[in-house]
């Protein structure tokens, strides 16, 4: 069973191994588009302290990110945003992703310092509203003018709603989070028809899925994320590391694209 090369398998018919051309280059720099602070009521994976979240991500080589708070899913927008304002304040590497809830009298943004409004997230399913223009107009129209980065978990909505949202608010930078591997073909069509749609890759585990998306749509709308602590971030680190794409595209996905989007938000 031992091959001539000394390991299991790799017979003579296998193609030459693809050796790295990256070891001599600088390590990949990551900006995590999808991590969450706080505890979850339904399991034990929550991370309550920023220092612990930071340590978890730093172990993966990730030193910065856009952070949500679990209170936004399980309590209220106001509580989540107040907690983020307090807990992230000491460490500017972690950028707050504020929760906005158009189905409440107070949408949650009144506690957000205006100069820190760069990213928001919506939870239509948990917060019990349809992601339709007539429902979200009052909240999203001002965010669209400022080009605020708007994150939505795919399981909080539907492809049809995402399409409608992107078409109705073409200045809004929409990011589909935690897509899973089964949606590759659907997301690919959405990316083709919605130039303001972006895809976060923490759970986009489709076989050669990153390659396929880059080949069809370019790398500029793909964002690295880990879904920490709900997922194990070493998976997306490895998937991006092994994707057969150019080093320039890899760097854009790892950090550059999200950095660009955050930098384009109007004050």
């Amino acid at each position, binding site marked *: *069973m031992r*091959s001539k090369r000394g*390991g*299991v*398998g*790799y*017979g*003579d*018919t*296998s*193609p030459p*191994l*693809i*050796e*790295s051309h*990256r*070891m001599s280059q600088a*390590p*990949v720099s990551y900006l995590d588009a999808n991590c969450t602070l706080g505890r979850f009521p339904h*399991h034990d*994976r929550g991370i309550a302290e920023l220092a612990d979240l930071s340590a978890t991500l730093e*172990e*993966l*080589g990730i030193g910065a990110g856009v952070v949500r708070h679990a209170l936004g899913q399980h309590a209220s927008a106001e509580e989540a945003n107040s907690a983020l304002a307090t807990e992230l304040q000491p460490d500017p590497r972690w950028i707050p992703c504020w929760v906005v809830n158009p189905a409440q009298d107070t949408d949650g943004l009144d506690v957000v310092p205006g100069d820190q409004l760069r990213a928001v997230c919506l939870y239509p399913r948990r917060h019990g509203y349809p992601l339709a223009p007539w429902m979200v107009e009052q909240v999203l129209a001002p965010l669209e003018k400022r080009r605020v980065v708007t994150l939505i978990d795919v399981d909080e909505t539907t492809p049809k709603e995402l399409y409608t949202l992107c078409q109705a608010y073409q200045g809004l930078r929409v990011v589909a989070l935690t897509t*899973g*591997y*089964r*949606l*590759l*073909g659907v997301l*690919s069509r959405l990316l083709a028809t919605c130039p303001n749609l972006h895809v976060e890759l923490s*759970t986009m*585990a*489709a*076989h*050669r*899925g990153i*390659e*396929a998306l880059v080949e069809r749509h370019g790398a500029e709308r793909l964002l690295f994320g880990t879904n920490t602590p709900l*997922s*194990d971030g*070493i*998976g*997306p*680190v*490895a*998937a991006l*590391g*092994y*994707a*057969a794409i150019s080093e320039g595209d890899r760097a854009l996905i790892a950090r550059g694209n999200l950095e660009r989007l955050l930098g384009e938000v109007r004050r």
Partner: protein
Amino acid sequence: MNEARAWLASGRSLRGFGWSIIDIHAHLGPYVGFEIPHGDADGMVFTMDRLGIAVAGISALTAINAEYARGNELTASAVRRHPDRFVGYAVANPWEPERISHELTRAFEELGFRGIKIIPSTWKLPVTDPRYEPIWAFAQERGTMVLSHTWAGDPTCRPSLFREIAARYPDVAFLLGHSGGPREGNVEAIDVAAACPNVYLELCYSQLTRRQLEEMVHAVGYERVLLGTDMPFIDPAFTIAKVICADLPEEQRRAIVGGNAERLLRASGALAATGA
């Protein structure tokens, strides 16, 4: 961890860092349910080369989801094209119990397969149904392994259903695919493996964490935990990374990522059959 993470981030084949990787649970496209880019044999070998996967045990998705004989032919075609990279797993549907012995014999003797794959959830037939008996009997007679899909709470294949079968067929290695998947299924899979020495835990589950993997190893021992990736459903980098970077001694990680599978496949005569 830092060293292993650096290997992964480098994108270099793990073979170059001395890892010998065997994927005990893979498939072969095409698939009807969602898009799988490059899910054919050559596309999978490309991925295997990039990561450093030496060998993958495969069953065509057509075999498990549609027509097993047609699917077995697809598997055989892939094995013929890459005989030192793929080991074929035979599929025979228990809804046709009278044909099982013939199909498995054909698959093993004519097509060179060396394992059996079952998917009770798709077939909607619990593994405890007597129509599976010809499969168990064939596996017992040939000393070959059976890889089954298992999932939390699934009435056809929840892990606890394998306890009695494994006890009745002690010479058959039963691999619990996905190790039961979600948390409650995983706990059940660990219980069954702890009670049955011929039950193994296979790791492909997209939401698997390193902590969960470490718990499995601590509960049943590293010798009965095996890497599977579900390729080409899922990019194998996700699962391999969790094993390589787990908080376990290197000897154990090496066994999980390849050594245990090598032992099991050798016992089935599989690796000798590849000629690799």
